[in-house]
């Protein structure tokens, strides 16, 4: 905040999957597992004459965050929109299972994905399900899992569910999180339901600010690699969300209140107004620090 203009910002959104990991973890500490040299590519894309990637669009491995061992995965949105196929999903599953076995300080999931990779439709759906189960199994083994959402492709479809299975979610204001993404919603339900080309509407609905205000995101960050690094370390430090009845009952009450309070909202700005934000129309224009001050009393849930 105060050092803006002094330290150069490095955009998280504009960085590649590998650059994000390099910026997030301690310098030079990242060691990739099953990297491109192994040339494990999707077996399904070749059948459709589609180009493959030697990492199948996700980088997984181990590194250090502020000196502590973590496992991390980073999805590359520029390869098939970060879509989860058989190999891509299996790499995420393997990493989470490794976490349950090795008990590192935590797992970081840098999500940048439209969800199931349509070109591997059925295998992708099963893979997302396996990722979900593996996130929960890692948490059950008391390894905290933190999702970071700030890439250009957002986090949608089943991976939008997977993000919320994690102990915590950090988002930038440019990040987007949901299940039915804007393009799918417009295609399926028509432009009257949602105009996917209306960027303001899309960000108002799915963007980090709204998610933070709802309590769906635990941190709202500037689009800055260093901000993500700091938040990831902090979220791993604050105690994990326990997988127990008490915690789930708390979450249940919160989700029930949200429905009761905001169930009639036709636009996210109506949620902001109902939550007590004084000038809701100004929220989209605020930088993260001002935004956090403006919604401090209105925020529901989150940690």
């Amino acid at each position: 905040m105060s050092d803006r203009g002094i330290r150069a910002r490095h955009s998280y959104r504009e960085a590649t999957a590998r650059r994000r990991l390099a910026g997030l973890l301690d310098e030079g500490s990242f060691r990739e597992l099953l990297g491109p040299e192994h040339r494990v590519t999707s077996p399904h894309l070749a059948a459709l004459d589609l180009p493959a990637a030697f990492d199948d669009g996700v980088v997984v491995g181990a590194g250090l965050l502020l000196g502590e061992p973590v496992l991390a995965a980073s999805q590359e949105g520029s390869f098939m929109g970060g879509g989860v196929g058989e190999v891509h999903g299996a790499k995420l599953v393997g990493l989470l299972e490794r976490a349950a076995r090795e008990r590192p300080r935590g797992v970081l999931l840098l999500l940048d994905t439209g969800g199931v990779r349509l070109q591997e439709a059925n295998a992708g759906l099963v893979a997302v399900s396996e990722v979900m189960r593996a996130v929960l199994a890692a948490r059950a083994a008391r390894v905290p899992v933190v999702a970071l959402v700030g890439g250009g492709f957002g986090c949608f479809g089943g991976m939008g569910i997977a993000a919320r299975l994690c102990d915590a979610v950090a988002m930038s204001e440019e990040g987007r999180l949901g299940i039915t993404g804007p393009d799918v919603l417009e295609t399926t339900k028509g432009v009257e339901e949602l105009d996917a080309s209306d960027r303001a509407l899309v960000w108002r609905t799915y963007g980090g600010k709204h998610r933070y205000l709802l309590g769906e995101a635990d941190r709202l960050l500037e689009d800055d690699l260093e901000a993500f690094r700091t938040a990831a370390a902090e979220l791993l430090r604050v105690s994990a969300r326990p997988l127990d009845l008490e915690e789930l009952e708390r979450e249940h009450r919160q989700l029930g209140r949200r429905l009761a309070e905001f169930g009639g909202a036709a636009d996210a700005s109506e949620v902001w107004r109902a939550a007590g934000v004084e000038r809701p129309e100004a929220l989209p224009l605020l930088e993260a620090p001002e935004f956090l001050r403006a919604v401090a009393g209105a925020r529901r849930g989150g940690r």
Partner: protein
Amino acid sequence: MTAAELLLSLFPAGHSVREEGSLLLGSGASPEGEVAVLGTAQGLEVGAEEALALAAFVLDVVRRHPARPLLALLDSRGQRMSLRDEILGLNGYLAHLATALELARQRGHRLLSLVYGEASSGSALALGFMGDEVHAVEGARLWVMNLPAMARVTKIPLERLAEVSRTSPVLAPGLDNYVRLGAVESVWQPPLAAALLQALRREAGPDRRSERGEERGGRLLARRVAEAVRGGRGGGG
């Protein structure tokens, strides 16, 4: 198959499952004791209210009936697709449902799923596919996208998708494909009560779907890739 027919076939000794707003909630009698039943009917698209109601049921079973098995019955076209549900954070509601089911699993409840109609997208992920074992009845329809729509979205000619689908289970909708991928453990034949009883008597294990997919030739890489990344020895349980 309607939910009523299905329930009669599963629980010949009787059940108390009510269908309200296309949600199924209640319990059925089996030789292994009461089975808690939750699910959807008539292709219900699961929105925030429905996900919360299903989660409430799971938490109630966890609170009041330790170790009682849970049977999820699925006929659902997926999550409700609406701006309003996205504003509310439907992904969070579905995640809550999935976490409630995981809590039940961790506390020793057996989780079984039976797809008796459609299964797709968000509700398949948050409800049906959360089971220790996922089964289906003949005629169940599991899908991500039909081939004509996939051709439009992916810009791959329909003929090509259809041709690849003759050998690959990955693209086209269909129960057989999901069996080959390991997503569906088995297809239950009548009498369903007997199949249910057998499943109730099996021990719960770790997620074995990638192994099944490999054995059945539908997913030849998933298990191996996960294992290579996991490292160490033995299963991922």
